[in-house]
């Protein structure tokens, strides 16, 4: 008996061995099946119109009329919303959900990026005066009318007092002064800015909140107001204005919204929008889980990255989803070099002065720029689903400087640049003019596969020039601490999200006193003017750009800033992922744009089960 088992076991072993090691070379048949690739024609509907019915100023969607009912399930990555108070949001998830509940006076046209009225019926601009006409007869979810008092309250008692998140207050300040706000009548208000100020109009997208609901809390001061509308607030209590109202929040699992029957948008048949009955946000921890949930049909929309794209593209024709290519993302990945030459409290320089000498040398930075192999980064790390990047503005920005063409990776140019800067290459090792070996640290956040792989590639690229690179992935939060607080780093690979419409939003990064001026961060309250020439020029561009009102006036300024960054290379841009999104076919009225993404018009999307 035992013998037989032993023999069988041996036979199996031999069999496996033969299977693995004896293989005939039969040429693979390469299928020549050409995959049909339909270019999606998207017929964008005309812009929305104002329509007055029975004295109520509705906003009429011009999109095709659809069916009512059904639900859309989408996902949000992370821990879910931290507050539904639209005035106190500090993270993307909270602000997108609070933004769903509360509309602002104006919004951004999803295609053109122009400012268009939303809660406001229309606006007139006269020099520094912005006159806002509100819609008559529209209501909060509890039936109270939305009037000028709510607008006055929102701006005077929340925004201008810096209650909650004071960023809008900062953004509205022109040379330290806030605009003035006057109520003209119950449905008209007037803002007056101290000076012409381009970014102002867009700031009016700040959500308007109901005075009668918010005031009791805002009167009690900061801490009560900040705790107000926490995710655990009973949903029935919440008075809002947006297309959807809160139904349910389940910690770490989901947020459910239902349609707001009082919403002021109607379709071409004059029926009240939105079409969908329910909007569900599943809270998922990471992208892997998101993909699995889409695969298991638990969510309806999925943004695809890297090699996932191919999997879904191939199966698209037989599947129940469509894939849209929204072009380059606003997110950018870059290599930032620390130009800091200041000293810490104990008089120790943040960056070793020897290293600072290298980093401060433009030719040294240029050599790095020429040595990084963006083409293979895109190919290997993003599986081809990305675009090489050379500009500070993201590729879909309307202010993109199209004259910056970039360059291929060329080690010879890089070597020449280093020679010019006085570096000497001995036996494949790079030394500076004083004979010091060029060696520095490269940081990125650990646990992020993409950035870790990028770091490994950058390290190899720079080692081809003879530099010694110590690649050190660290915990995300400690990396940020290094960049913004302790400044003791040499180079880092990071990512930031830009705004495709308003380059002024980048002022924290580019102006010398900005809180994200990573490559030459000055501590808060620093008042010594040690700006580099090009930093001065950037400061001027950003203060001037904000005061110019038209696109045509502003464009040359922001072109110039991108040229400066491209020439000086304190930040070396690597690539920008392409945004590819899949959505189930049954959803109609989907008009993706590269500026606003796929599902910005949640009130117009409807379900057609037939197709």
């Amino acid at each position: 008996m035992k013998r037989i088992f032993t023999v069988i076991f041996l036979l199996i072993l031999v069999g496996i061995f033969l299977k693995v090691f004896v293989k005939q070379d039969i040429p693979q048949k390469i299928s020549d099946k050409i995959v049909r690739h339909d270019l999606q024609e998207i017929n964008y509907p005309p812009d929305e119109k104002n329509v007055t019915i029975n004295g109520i100023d509705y906003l009429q969607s011009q999109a095709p009329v659809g069916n009512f009912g059904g639900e859309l399930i989408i996902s949000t990555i992370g821990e879910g919303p931290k507050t539904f108070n639209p005035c106190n949001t500090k993270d993307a998830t909270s602000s997108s959900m609070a933004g769903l509940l509360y509309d602002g006076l104006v919004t951004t046209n999803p295609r053109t990026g122009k400012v268009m009225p939303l809660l406001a019926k229309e606006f007139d601009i006269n020099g520094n005066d912005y006159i806002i006409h509100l819609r008559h007869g529209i209501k909060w979810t509890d039936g109270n009318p939305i009037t000028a008092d709510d607008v006055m309250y929102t701006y005077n008692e929340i925004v201008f007092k810096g209650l909650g998140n004071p960023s809008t207050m900062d953004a509205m300040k022109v040379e330290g002064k806030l605009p003035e706000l006057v109520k003209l009548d119950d449905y008209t208000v007037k803002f007056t800015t101290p000076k012409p100020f381009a970014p102002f109009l867009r700031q009016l997208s700040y959500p308007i909140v109901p005075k009668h609901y918010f005031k009791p809390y805002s009167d009690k001061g900061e801490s009560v107001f900040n705790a107000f509308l926490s995710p655990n607030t009973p949903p029935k209590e919440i008075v809002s204005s947006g297309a959807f109202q809160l139904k349910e929040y389940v910690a770490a699992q989901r947020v459910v919204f239902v349609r707001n029957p009082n919403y002021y948008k109607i379709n071409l048949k004059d029926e009240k929008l939105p079409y969908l009955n329910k909007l569900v946000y599943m809270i998922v921890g990471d992208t892997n889980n998101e993909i699995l949930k889409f695969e298991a049909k638990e969510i309806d929309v999925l943004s695809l990255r890297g090699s996932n794209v191919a999997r879904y593209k191939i199966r698209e024709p037989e599947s129940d989803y469509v894939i849209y290519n929204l072009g380059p993302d606003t997110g950018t990945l870059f290599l930032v070099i620390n130009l800091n030459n200041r000293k810490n409290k104990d008089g120790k320089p943040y960056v070793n002065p020897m290293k600072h000498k290298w980093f401060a040398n433009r030719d040294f930075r240029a050599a790095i720029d020429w040595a990084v192999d963006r083409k293979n980064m895109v190919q290997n790390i993003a599986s081809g689903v990305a675009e090489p990047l050379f500009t500070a503005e993201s590729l879909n920005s309307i202010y993109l400087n199209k004259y910056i063409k970039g360059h291929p990776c060329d080690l010879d140019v890089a070597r020449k640049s280093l020679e010019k800067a006085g570096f000497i290459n001995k036996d494949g090792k790079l030394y500076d003019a004083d004979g010091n070996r060029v060696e520095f640290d490269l940081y990125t956040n650990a646990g992020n596969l993409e950035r870790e792989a990028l770091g490994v590639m950058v390290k190899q690229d720079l080692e081809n020039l003879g530099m010694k690179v110590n690649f050190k992935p660290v915990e995300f939060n400690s990396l940020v601490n290094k960049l913004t607080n302790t400044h003791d780093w040499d180079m880092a690979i990071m990512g930031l999200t830009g705004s495709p419409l308003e380059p002024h939003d980048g002022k924290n990064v580019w102006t010398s006193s900005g809180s994200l001026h990573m490559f030459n961060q000055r501590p808060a309250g620093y008042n010594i003017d040690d700006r580099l020439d090009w930093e001065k020029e950037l400061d001027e561009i950003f203060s001037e750009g904000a005061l110019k009102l038209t696109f045509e006036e502003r464009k040359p300024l922001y072109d110039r800033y991108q040229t400066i960054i491209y020439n000086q290379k304190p930040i070396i841009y690597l690539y920008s992922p392409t945004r590819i999104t899949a959505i189930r076919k049954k959803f109609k009225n989907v008009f993706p744009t590269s500026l606003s993404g796929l599902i910005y018009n949640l009130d117009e999307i409807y379900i057609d089960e037939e197709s």
Partner: protein
Amino acid sequence: MEVLRKIFQDKFAKAAFIVLAALYIVILFADFIAPYSNTYSNRSMAYAPPSKIYTIDERGKLSRPYTYNYKREYEPALMQTVFKQDRSKKYYIKPFVKAEGYKFLGLIPTHRHLFGVDKGGELYLLGTDINGRDVFSRLLFGGRISMTVGFLSLLIVFPIGLLYGGISGYFGGIIDTLMMRFAEATMAIPSFYLLIILAAILPSGMTSIQRFMLIIVILGLIGWAGFARVVRGMVLSIKNEDFVQAEKTIGASNMRIILKHILPQTTSYVIIAMTLSVPSYILAESGLSFLGLGIQQPDASWGNMLKEAQEFTNILYRPWLLTPGVLIFIAVLSFNLLGDAIRDVLDPKSQKRI
């Protein structure tokens, strides 16, 4: 010898021992066995599948094993990267080929590798990873870290635990109470969280060697208290034995009694605890690396290699990235089986798991 013979009577233990011995030999000679070095990477071959090795050529004749290179193509319509065989040239797999230089056992500089293909050829037994690095080679180098991290941690745990438990148990009284309260306090902090808190505070400016050492220290710091408690318990019973009392009357110093007479009595327990706790350290390292707090890129460990296998598409389309998980499994299983057998032989009475 008698003990070893007894252990090997157990077939599972024997198999486990052979597997572990083979693993350690392979990682010891990793430079020689791996066709590529730890830092090798081929830019144009990210996520290449394992090389196909043929022993029968296209005309059906037996041949020396050979392989083809891959060429990468990108299909813009599908945004898909495909690897096709470049059938223009066969690369024969040969023993002792000349390739990248290294120092054999860290001493003798040489260019010979156990096997490989001629210049220009690429041999990826287990495919490549996102940076175009040979997974097979990295598995061997990663094993060096994963398979030793446990033993090295024990070098910290055991001296601390033995001494701490020994002193506490031997002196008793107020010293014992204080020492044990402190040990209990460290044990009371849920160990996994303590582990990640400690790993997260590692200073970021460290070299990979320093980081490796500190991770060992951290793993050690987590484990010492439990071990010390058991040792204390054993010492409590040993110290009343006659021979200890005899030593005391001779006037031997306390330290001498603890080190020379009491602790050696715990040897068999120590050996058992060692084999049985190594696997938990291997698993802990992989968990840390999974969270991005363990061994960092570009160094390899089985844990951080397995991180790549998290992604859905990688599991479906690139199963070769799962091999580190298989190796962790095999290593831990072998240690457990071997540990069981050793325990049965050395200490048949007290069968407690540690």
